[in-house]
């Protein structure tokens, strides 16, 4: 079975080389390559005709409602997507890579794409020149799939720019590991552009955490197998998995670098980083919940029904002990003072 992770990795391996944010240049095909390409195209057409009937039935569903008032560009984009999804919405669309024999999945989940952050784009906005016509070339042309081409303007709006994210990624276990599993790892390996949707403030936290962690678990699926003993040291392991994002512990706690995924042995295992006074991770979790509260409830209702509370956040064991000791001492002093006053008065009365 082909997973979305397999697909993303395959695409990433094919489209991205050294720089995860840049597409590599294509190379002219040799005679062998052209023959392979021809065979692949033939296979694709056979798939298409075999499944043509079912695709036609779903075309109406694929085409999105674009009323007269809708912007012309949106309508054109929808038409473009419609044309591409005629083939790529088929779940069986794929081919066997002649180099390594692996199956490359070319299907796109229509629902996932529609709900993704790129859901309103035309396919050729990203898959540019090479994919305007069919049959497609077997490799993208230079400049195709250039994420930065669209996202460069966002640098000003982001707290951390692409350069920072790129640097974080290059330090991450996904970039520096010797494991063959990370070969060709790129942005797309986690952020499948056909499905990716950033968490929106106001969504239930459990949902956000689940969406986040699904990305990690699409590869690290063994972790959640029933027989898995991974993360067994965590008290209430399942509660952590449903309430905390993997990256909260598996990225550096001291600095905000959520693309610098750490190997297991370097990940955060110190409970008090969350359940105590650590300023960094604590603030990150708390602010996340706070923003969510305000978005969901509004400013005033948030003040009363505030849900942003991390157990132990205001706790400092030393401060608590000191404060309770001072309060206890004060109670003793006051009690002694009171007893002293009582005894003096009683003695005075007797005298």
């Amino acid at each position, binding site marked *: 079975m082909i997973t979305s992770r397999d697909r993303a990795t395959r695409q990433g391996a094919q489209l991205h080389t050294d720089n995860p944010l840049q597409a590599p240049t294509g190379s002219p095909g040799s005679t062998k390559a052209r023959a392979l390409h021809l065979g692949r195209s033939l296979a694709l057409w056979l798939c298409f005709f075999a499944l043509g009937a079912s695709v036609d039935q779903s075309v109406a569903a694929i085409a999105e409602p674009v009323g007269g008032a809708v912007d012309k560009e949106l309508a054109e984009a929808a038409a473009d997507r419609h044309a591409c999804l005629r083939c790529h919405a088929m779940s069986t669309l794929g081919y066997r890579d002649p180099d390594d024999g692996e199956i490359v999945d070319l299907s796109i989940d229509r629902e996932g794409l529609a709900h993704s952050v790129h859901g309103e784009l035309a396919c050729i906005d990203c898959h540019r020149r090479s994919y305007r016509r069919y049959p497609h070339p077997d490799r993208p042309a230079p400049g195709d799939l250039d994420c930065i081409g669209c996202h460069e303007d966002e640098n000003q709006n982001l707290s951390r720019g692409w350069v920072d994210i790129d640097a974080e990624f290059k330090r991450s276990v996904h970039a520096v590991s010797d494991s063959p599993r990370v070969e060709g790892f790129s942005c797309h390996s986690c952020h499948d552009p056909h499905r990716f949707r950033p968490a929106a403030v106001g969504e239930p936290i459990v949902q956000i955490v689940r969406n986040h962690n699904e990305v990690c678990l699409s590869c690290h699926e063994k972790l959640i197998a029933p027989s898995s003993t991974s993360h067994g040291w965590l008290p209430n392991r399942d509660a952590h998995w449903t309430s905390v994002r993997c990256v909260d512990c598996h990225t550096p706690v001291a600095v905000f670098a959520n693309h610098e995924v750490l190997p297991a042995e370097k990940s955060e295992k110190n409970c008090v980083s969350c359940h105590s006074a650590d300023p960094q991770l604590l603030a990150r979790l708390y602010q996340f919940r706070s923003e969510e509260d305000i978005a969901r409830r509004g400013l005033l209702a948030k003040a009363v029904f505030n849900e942003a509370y991390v157990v132990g956040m205001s706790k400092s064991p030393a*401060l608590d002990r000191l404060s309770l000791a001072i*309060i206890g001492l004060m109670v003793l002093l006051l009690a002694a003072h009171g007893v002293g006053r009582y005894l003096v008065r009683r003695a005075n009365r007797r005298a």
Partner: protein
Amino acid sequence: MKSLYLYPVWLRLWHWINALLFLTLIASGVSMHYAGADWLMPFATARVVHNTAGILLTMAWIIFVVANARSENARHYRVRFRTLIGDLIAQTRYYMIGIFRLEPHPFHVTEAMKFNTLQQLSYLGVMYGLMPILILSGWAFLYSVYLPETLFGLGSVWVVAMTHVVVSYLLALFLLVHMYIITTGDTVFSNLRAMITGWHRETDLPRTETTAPAPRETP
């Protein structure tokens, strides 16, 4: 015996509402801070109770500050710097030594000044120092997303959390001392009664003797 009307209705009302809110905030705050113990309030309840009581405390504090500034009560908060040191020493000496020798109280309540120097400084510190910090840090907790990421190089939320909890402990300490000190009036309950009825009663005679009640002075 002389009677002075020192605590007008608004002040007494504010005082007891404030006291109730203080106790509610301590109970709910402790329930969240030490969450998990059976004898504490359920966490979800404590959170809403604490937030609501905090908002009401803020309103009560604003009402107090405005009313205090606009009424004659403000005069009791004016520090007499000229005699400050001497008064402080005398008052502290009384609580530590004089009270056990049944010496007369070094401070005499008048309509112009109802607080002794120690009382005055502690009330000033609490109402115009600790309370605003407590309230501001409480609101900063609620709207921490609008704070800068760091304060003084430390995570904002941590600074806010520590400030809130330290001031809470200090105010709990104040409450303890306050509840004890009010028993050091003419009788154990005379100060408490004054805050209920509004009338401060003081006898000029030694405590062990009794006198017939004198007619009250009108406020």
